[in-house]
């Protein structure tokens, strides 16, 4: 069964304020105030509860309860709520640490895998460099010969150059 929020505030809140208004306040502690009437519990806020005397009776559709009893109920609930809060904080911190550890491990694995690929690629690079150094004098000679070569000789030199280029391309030289 539902009641509108506005209706709740009007019936509950005003009745509580009215009840507080008729109280004879003799001190700051709730227990020293005197209860003059029963009040409806609907809309009763924590601040209002703390102002009411412990002997004040609060009504609800399910029965009556004193402020002292309701405060005791709230205290027990507060302990459970606080424990739940800290448990949630703890779970969240642990999950964040776990996610961060996983990320660090993934990054390390990636670097390790990359390291293996680097070793292979560097070996290829060394082989390519060795081939370049080996054919470098011949390439220089080919070029020098083209400076004085006839067209037919140039074709022949170019054919040899194509062979060397294929050798280089075969080992990945770009």
């Amino acid at each position, binding site marked *: 069964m539902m009641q509108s929020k506005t209706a709740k505030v009007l019936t509950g809140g005003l009745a509580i304020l009215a009840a507080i208004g008729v109280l004879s306040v003799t001190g700051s502690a709730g227990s020293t105030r005197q209860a003059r009437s029963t009040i409806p519990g*609907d809309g009763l806020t924590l601040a209002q509860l703390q102002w009411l005397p412990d002997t004040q009776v609060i009504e609800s559709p399910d029965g009556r309860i004193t402020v002292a009893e309701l405060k005791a109920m709230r205290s027990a609930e507060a302990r459970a709520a606080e424990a739940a809060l800290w448990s949630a904080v703890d779970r969240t911190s642990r999950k964040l640490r776990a*996610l961060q550890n996983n990320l660090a491990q993934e990054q390390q694995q990636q670097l390790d895998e990359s390291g293996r690929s680097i070793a292979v690629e560097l070996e290829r690079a060394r082989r390519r460099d060795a081939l370049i150094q080996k054919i470098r004098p011949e390439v220089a000679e080919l070029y020098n010969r083209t400076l004085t070569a006839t067209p037919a000789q140039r074709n022949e030199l170019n054919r040899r150059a194509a062979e060397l280029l294929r050798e280089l391309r075969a080992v990945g030289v*770009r």
Partner: protein
Amino acid sequence: MKRTIAGLGIALVLSLGVAAAPPSQDWGPDDAHIGSLVSLCLVIDCWKLLHYPVIKAVLLNNIVEPGETIILGGSSFGTSADNFAGGTIMLSNGAFMWVELSKAFWADGAVAAKVPKPFPTAFGDEPFPDQWATLRVIRADGTSSNAFPVFFKAEREIRALQYNEPAVKLTSCGDDGNYDSCNKIVDDGETPVFWQFGTGCFSTLCGVHENSWGAIGDDTGTDQYQITLKNGWVFEDIEMSTYKSSTNEIIQGPTPSLPIGGTSWSPQFSWTVTPNDRAVYTVSVFIKGPKGTSPQ
């Protein structure tokens, strides 16, 4: 403004703005239309005219990440025979910051270098986000190669998003309870029915709905939020906790579930609270993105 990390080596130039497309190479040989000897001489500088190094390809690790080693293929990087082996590889960005990479291997046709980790920050210690950058080889004789485009991927971190960050927005908060609070925004004029703890929200999404003692009927409603991530940040995971003061409370959600790897999420939570009870949910959203940068 320009900041240069001096020294011989290998460097990357990075910009603080995230480029949408790779920069074009500013030079590169096209050996498809020239003779074999000419092509050969572009690889081996036989006529001593190609006095500049040429980066033709990234042979390994095309995406440049801190801690990774990249290998560049090309020509005329320098040989000991020519008396100028070695040099610099620079990685640069649009903020004109040059980052020198430490050399691991140097030969005329290939060089390898390691990207520093931790990666240097820009002016004011601002970290670099993901972006297109350019690589340059600068030989020991001072000759610079073409600028070769590479994608720079910043180091990643995982963190929890906080409820008060701009990326997190409250769309609507159900207000049927005697006290309704979503991400510390309390429904007008309401004060708590139950004792509150701490700041009231230590995570990304927090809903508190309370129904007073003696209330007539249950309170029920729906809360909705919107989270939008930017700058390369994505959703990684969530941790949700609920607290119900009795077994009668109902909290359903988030709906839809977190789009892991996504950048936009509109989670919704439905709740029902019986009289003299409260229902609380907290959701920590963990996000992954470029270390030190803002997700919003």
